[in-house]
């Protein structure tokens, strides 16, 4: 066996906040050999990213590190800034979560790769350019000679992440630190990026330190796994050990809360009403032309009906138009053609005034709870606003209703005077639900409500939503990119691609024997927390490619 490239011993990180040291990572010990993948898994706030950044002293100035980090037998924690600068990029390269923010928007990707190359090697601009083209070809970005002169905003999300990887690989680093490399990407793109990373690792014989919260990704990539909770390593072992024989209760809980496809019980819904709550007929939605940008058809000839008490999952990749459908169905977006009927009333040509009264029957939960709550409004007021505006209650009556709603979503009543930023992500999303349910709507639109949440928080949130739906019996359009989540909730599933409805049907029919190739591809790309299963799928994917 070769020598480990990274040796971490008793590594601690503390943050100085308000006069005390808060530990963020405590006594981390691990080693990494070339060609190996170590995954650090944990929920947000568990200290996994802190550990990764702390390895190369990239933390904020109020952090303190101790212990020992050796990269190729060079101690990094006490290294001088110039040694560190040389090692960063050369020995240890980073891939970040959000490629749009990690790449500089005012330079071409070629320029940024060339810059990295020329910082570390003594080469001329022409040579560096050639090498950059080679790197871009290596990460499978189409048409490398042309793509090298593109700006980050001209690339798709997956291509941007590829460009980031190309930049990280520019100096053949021995260790690649990938901090949530696929979180911002669609499942199908995610699978491609993971395949690419695995291929490159084998080709270059580098080690990968993978930071993620997604157990499916871990199952796909990792040789060895380290589970973290509140800064402490709770379990450390091979992938097989962790997935098949987890010891620590937290690991079990983490694995248990990962939604699995086809694992939930079959639910049968008897539809008694003849009239659907939401009826979308041949709807086309277009974003109008702005300046030189031509008009863009986001949704074309879309048909869907949702009945009382039914949850319909709407899935598709980003850009497929699912959110557009969700917004249009409560009249937030104008439609170009077709007809949308909400509780028997046509909203496609309704006036502002009519819309107000129709909207009382609807509620919406947005994707990002941080942005969907007014930061200047205490949450009690946010929740009470629909009731107040509908003129149903005022003063102490309103206060009681808000308390009831808070109880319903299992938040303490004392939270009503808090501002949104004082709540955690999961709590904020509960506030979002409480507000959406304030007027006991007939239709609830949930637009990716769990994509910003951790798996265990997500599991609790889905339970709550299901329970409330059972109690209040509203119709629900659940928009998500995550098939596993939709599987848990939905009675029926609709699949969208490029603005068109590809397939719609009962949950079991879609998940088990989908007619459409796109649906099957989408299902196959969902990562499962099971290394063996992932290997089978990977091979199937490769076979299909060749």
């Amino acid at each position, binding site marked *: 066996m070769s020598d480990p490239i990274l040796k971490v011993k008793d590594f601690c990180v503390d943050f100085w906040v308000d*006069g005390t040291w808060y530990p963020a990572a405590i006594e981390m010990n691990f080693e990494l050999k070339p060609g190996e993948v170590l995954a650090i898994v944990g929920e947000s706030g568990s200290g996994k990213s802190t550990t990764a950044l702390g390895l190369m002293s990239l933390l904020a100035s109020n952090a303190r590190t101790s212990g020992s980090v050796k990269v190729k037998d060079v101690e990094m924690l006490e290294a001088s800034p110039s040694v560190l600068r040389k090692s960063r990029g050369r020995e240890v390269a980073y891939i970040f979560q959000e490629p749009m923010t990690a790449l500089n928007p005012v330079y071409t990707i070629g320029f940024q790769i060339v810059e990295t190359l020329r910082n570390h090697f003594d080469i001329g601009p022409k040579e560096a350019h050639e090498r950059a083209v080679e790197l871009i070809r290596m990460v499978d970005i189409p048409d490398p000679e042309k793509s090298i002169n593109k700006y980050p905003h001209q690339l798709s999300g997956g291509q941007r992440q590829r460009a980031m990887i190309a930049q990280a690989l520019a100096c053949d680093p021995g260790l690649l630190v990938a901090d949530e490399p696929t979180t911002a990407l669609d499942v199908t793109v995610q699978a491609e990026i993971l395949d690419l990373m695995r291929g490159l690792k084998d080709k270059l014989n580098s080690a990968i330190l993978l930071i993620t919260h997604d157990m499916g990704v871990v199952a796909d990539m990792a040789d060895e796994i380290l589970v973290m909770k509140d800064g402490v390593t709770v379990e450390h072992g091979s992938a097989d050990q962790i997935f098949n024989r987890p010891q620590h209760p937290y690991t079990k809980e983490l694995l248990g809360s990962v939604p699995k496809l086809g694992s939930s019980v079959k639910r049968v819904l008897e539809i008694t009403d003849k009239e659907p709550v939401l009826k979308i007929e041949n709807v086309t939605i277009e974003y109008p032309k702005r300046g030189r940008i031509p008009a863009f058809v986001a949704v074309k000839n879309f048909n869907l009906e949702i009945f009382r008490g039914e949850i319909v999952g709407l899935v598709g990749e980003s850009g497929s138009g699912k959110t557009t459908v969700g*917004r249009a169905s409560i009249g937030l977006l104008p439609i170009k053609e077709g007809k949308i009927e909400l509780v028997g009333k046509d909203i496609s040509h309704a006036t502002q005034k009519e819309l107000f009264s129709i909207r009382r029957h609807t509620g919406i939960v947005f994707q*990002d709870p941080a942005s969907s709550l*007014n930061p*200047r409004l205490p949450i009690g*007021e946010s929740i009470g*606003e629909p009731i107040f505006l*509908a003129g149903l209650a005022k003063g102490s009556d*309103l206060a009681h209703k808000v308390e009831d709603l808070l109880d319903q979503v299992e938040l303490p009543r004392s939270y009503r005077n808090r501002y949104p930023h004082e709540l955690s992500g999961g709590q904020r999303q509960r506030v979002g639900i409480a507000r959406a349910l304030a007027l006991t709507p007939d239709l609830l639109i949930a637009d990716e409500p769990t994509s910003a949440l951790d798996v265990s928080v997500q599991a609790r949130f889905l339970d709550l939503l299901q329970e409330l739906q059972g109690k209040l019996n509203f119709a629900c359009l659940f928009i998500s990119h995550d098939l596993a989540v939709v599987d848990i909730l939905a009675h029926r599933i609709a699949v969208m691609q490029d603005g068109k409805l590809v397939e719609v049907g009962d949950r079991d029919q879609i998940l088990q024997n989908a007619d459409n190739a796109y649906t099957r591809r989408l299902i196959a790309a969902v990562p499962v927390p099971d290394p063996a299963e992932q290997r089978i799928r990977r091979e199937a994917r490769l076979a299909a490619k060749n």
Partner: protein
Amino acid sequence: MIFSKKKNVEALEETSIINKEIEGLSQGQIVRRRFFRHKGAMISIIFLASIIVFVYSSLKMKIFSFTYPGWWKYTIEDLPPLELGACKDGLVGCPTLSLRPEFLGGNGISLGEHPFGQDDIGRDYFALVMRGAQRSLMVTFVIGFIGGTIGTVVGAISGFYRGIVDSVLMRFTDFIITIPTIIIGSVIGFHFGNLGVGFLAFYLGLFAWTGLSRLVRGEFLTLREREFVDAARVAGATNRRIIFKHILPNAVGIIIVSVTLLMSGAILLETALSYLGFGVVSPDVSLGSLISQYQESFTTRPWLFWYPGLFIISIALSINFIGDGLRDAFDPRQRRRITKKDRERAVRLKREAAQK
């Protein structure tokens, strides 16, 4: 029996504390509470209020047919003889104000005949400064109010509605920006100077809102795309409610900072106009005109500078402090600063807990 009663009372107190914590507060109530807790702003607001009362009550004033006597014996029209006062080196009209008590080797605390001294022709300088401060305060508030209101409304409307409304309003703003304020002031001062300084301030306010409206528009353009605006729309809020209740409080930081700068700037604008001879027309005075009038006597008779300057600084500073307090009160992220005392207490509590 007694014991249980006591217990009951305790339990009652406990519940009332809990009730207090979960009692629903509106945004306005929370902001007000936070503002009252801001020490600097509260001191400044009291200070500014006392300056206003002090300044406006000092001189004789005619309000329609009613004459308010004022507690100061001179007005700016009186011409008492020039007095020697405490002067040395052949000067006349020095301030007679003495603040050093006798036991510290001074002349005791007394106002004297002319506490701020006299000007060239013997007018009482205290009366002049009071009159000047009245004028400057009025100019400041009128410009701040009119400029602030117009700027916020224009910026909010064009940022919220975008499209053609935005284009029309912003081209109009461009047009106003291209006209130099000094020229507007001169024209207004030249034609309507005899109508009084209030009129001048009103017109200046009509031209002073441009910068603010641009800032507010930019803020609105970004805020209107946030999801909470859609959430409010789904909740049934009208455009007016969305603008004033949801977006405006989020833009209030920028508005307050900008308006307080506008108000401090207004004092200087009025000074500049008075210096050019278009602002406050003699015999009326403002703090600015007093300073520019005596700019050459700085080395020989510095008090002619000190007193109006002191008032300008106090007014501008307290306005800025109040603005700071308001901005902090509106900002939900702003927490009460943790003082050294709090830290020590936390350490002590921790130690006590450890001992237990």
